[in-house]
């Protein structure tokens, strides 16, 4: 079985996530796209670990998952606080800081 297909899949997922961040307007959806990017990276890491036959990549994927969870908690806290004061999570409505 060709292992590098997983790398292509990971690159495609990462790109979908990156494009999503750029085109979507809802902060929560943007955030979901960032999570998709992180998980695409995890797929690469595990694939590389398999190709090289060492475990580093799998361990790094663990760290990425933990960091992603911490990011979720902090991110949702921030998004929720702005949601409560503005009643909208649209990135377009956040425009007080434009010059």
């Amino acid at each position, binding site marked *: 079985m060709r292992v590098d297909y997983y790398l292509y899949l990971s690159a495609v997922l990462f790109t979908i996530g990156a494009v999503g961040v750029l085109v979507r307007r*809802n902060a929560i959806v943007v955030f979901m796209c960032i999570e998709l990017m992180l998980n695409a990276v995890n797929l690469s890491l595990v694939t590389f670990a398999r190709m090289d036959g060492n475990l580093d990549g799998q361990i790094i994927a663990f760290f990425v998952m933990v960091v992603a969870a911490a990011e979720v908690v902090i991110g949702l806290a921030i998004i929720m606080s702005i*949601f409560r004061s503005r009643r909208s999570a649209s990135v377009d409505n956040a425009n007080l800081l434009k010059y």
Partner: protein
Amino acid sequence: MIPIVVLAVLGVGFAVFSIIAGSLAGPKRFNKAKLESYECGIEPSPQAFRGHRFPVKYYLTAMLFIVFDIEIIFLYPWAVAFNKLGMFGLVEMILFILAVFVVYAYVWRRGGLEWD
């Protein structure tokens, strides 16, 4: 092969039975809440707010769950290789768990675990 087929037939059969039985036996009363998105997904934002109330309890519990749940991930590799890691692994893991417990104490003292 046979057990899998039997199991599949049983599973499909149960699902079909439940749907049919539910639609025949259940009362049909519709209200607005039933048409809203179930459990997750984004609430349609203009209508979802009356006043400035926003149900926050479930959110807080869920977030605390995610944070503490994910820390377990570091225990798995340690548990699998417990004998090889020896004293060093044990000490490091105790330090890690202590750090997590400090945060747990904070959450507990500041009322993060109370539902109301």
